[in-house]
């Protein structure tokens, strides 16, 4: 049994929130540079350059990459041999988030009630997903998820008779419909299978895979490539002004499902993919 103090979790979450918002990860920068080399549209090239340059400014001046510093989505894997002492786990995570958004000068973008729209003033609550795993570590993964791209996401309950082509059409129609709104070039996370609640979780988790790393299953990896090509053929381009870079990557995760079902969830992420993780 390993003991981990709650305060350590708070500090880690706080650091992850600030880092995610000010320091664009290497894999995202690499994908943007790769896209810039291939982009044919002049406005597309200019926008990709501005995005890359913005990452430099944000890193140098410790400023948020985007004014929408997101809803903090925290995935926590707790080793079953860990004992958390000196505080409550969820409170420790939330304290880390509020401290980061306050001290780190990040925008508070959470409303207390979805209809009354009053700002909570501390970016709380975070959305927390907990999992118990073997071992004696705690792994914390944090997505600072902007609202614009999240709004473009969708789920559809297909029938088992549906084909891969029908699923592709659902994804492509969604991308066409939203066009420039989610701040392309996007990252597309797709969850296929599970249930009405689990497919979106698969989609969201797939966004946290190293950018552009194919699924370990060959057939799924080929599907990711096929969809990426189709999405980039739409012509939407960087910020929707036309071009060949509409998405940087497609990540698909598959999971068993009920004999009657075929849920498909698409979680859309903007180019400012703010993700960091740490293991305690």
């Amino acid at each position: 049994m390993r003991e981990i103090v709650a305060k350590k979790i708070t500090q880690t979450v706080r650091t992850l929130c600030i880092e995610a918002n000010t320091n664009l990860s290497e894999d995202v920068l690499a994908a943007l540079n790769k896209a810039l080399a291939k982009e044919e549209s002049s406005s597309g090239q200019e926008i990709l350059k501005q995005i890359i340059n913005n990452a430099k400014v944000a890193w140098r001046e410790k400023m948020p990459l985007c004014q929408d510093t997101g809803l903090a989505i925290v995935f926590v894997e707790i080793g079953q041999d860990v004992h958390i002492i000196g505080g409550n786990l969820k409170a420790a995570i939330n304290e880390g988030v509020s401290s980061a958004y306050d001290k780190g000068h990040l925008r508070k973008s959470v409303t207390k009630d979805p209809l009354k729209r009053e700002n909570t003033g501390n970016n709380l609550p975070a959305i927390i997903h907990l999992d118990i795993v073997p071992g004696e570590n705690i792994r914390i993964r944090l997505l600072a998820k902007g609202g614009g791209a999240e709004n473009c996401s969708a789920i559809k309950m297909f029938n088992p008779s549906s084909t891969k082509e029908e699923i592709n059409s659902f994804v492509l129609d969604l991308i066409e419909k939203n066009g420039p709104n989610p701040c392309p070039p996007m990252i597309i996370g797709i969850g296929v299978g599970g249930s009405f609640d689990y497919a979106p979780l698969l989609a969201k988790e797939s966004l946290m895979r190293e950018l552009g790393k194919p699924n370990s299953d060959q057939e799924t990896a080929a599907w990711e490539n096929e969809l990426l090509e189709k999405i980039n053929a739409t012509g939407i381009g960087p910020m929707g002004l036309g071009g060949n870079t509409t998405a940087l990557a497609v990540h698909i995760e598959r999971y068993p499902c009920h004999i009657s079902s075929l849920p498909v969830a698409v979680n859309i992420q903007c180019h400012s993919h703010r993700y960091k993780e740490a293991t305690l």
Partner: protein
Amino acid sequence: MTKKKTKKTSLVLKAPLTEKDIKSLNIGDRVLISGTIYAARDSAHKLFGKNPPFEIKGSILFYASPTPAKKGQVIGSIGPTTASRMDPYTVDLLKKGLKITIGKGLRSQVVKDAMKKYQAIYLVVPGGISAGIAKHILKSTIIAYPELGPEAVLELEATNLPAIVAIDCKGKDLFEVGKKKYQTK
């Protein structure tokens, strides 16, 4: 009103703008915004409806809400939010003389038609380059609804803020034209 060309030949636009200023602009034009602009988004629009807390005639409205400024900064990171969420409120404002809206993403056909009718344009600024955009803001003042926190209405003083004309007052839409050009399927 003021409209001159910089060395890079981008037009500099400054409020208050006239119909004549707007008519000369076409989709794809690169422009620079200077002078007074107002920042407002979802909750503020819902509150002010047809009566914004600033002189609407000839004005420039930026759909934005920045991150808090650090000590010594004028403003934190600032950039556009999705403009279509403000579509339900926009026609009334265009009718009252709003000349330029700045945001990201699509506008509805109703708003495009109203932009044609009332001679207004929509500019796009790329999203997610907000640390860079902050350099183009010289001053920021809360003028209404401080209780909304980040959604308060701001009066900003901009200097050479780069933007692209995405929808002009002739009803042309750069998103449609740009996409068609690079569509390969």
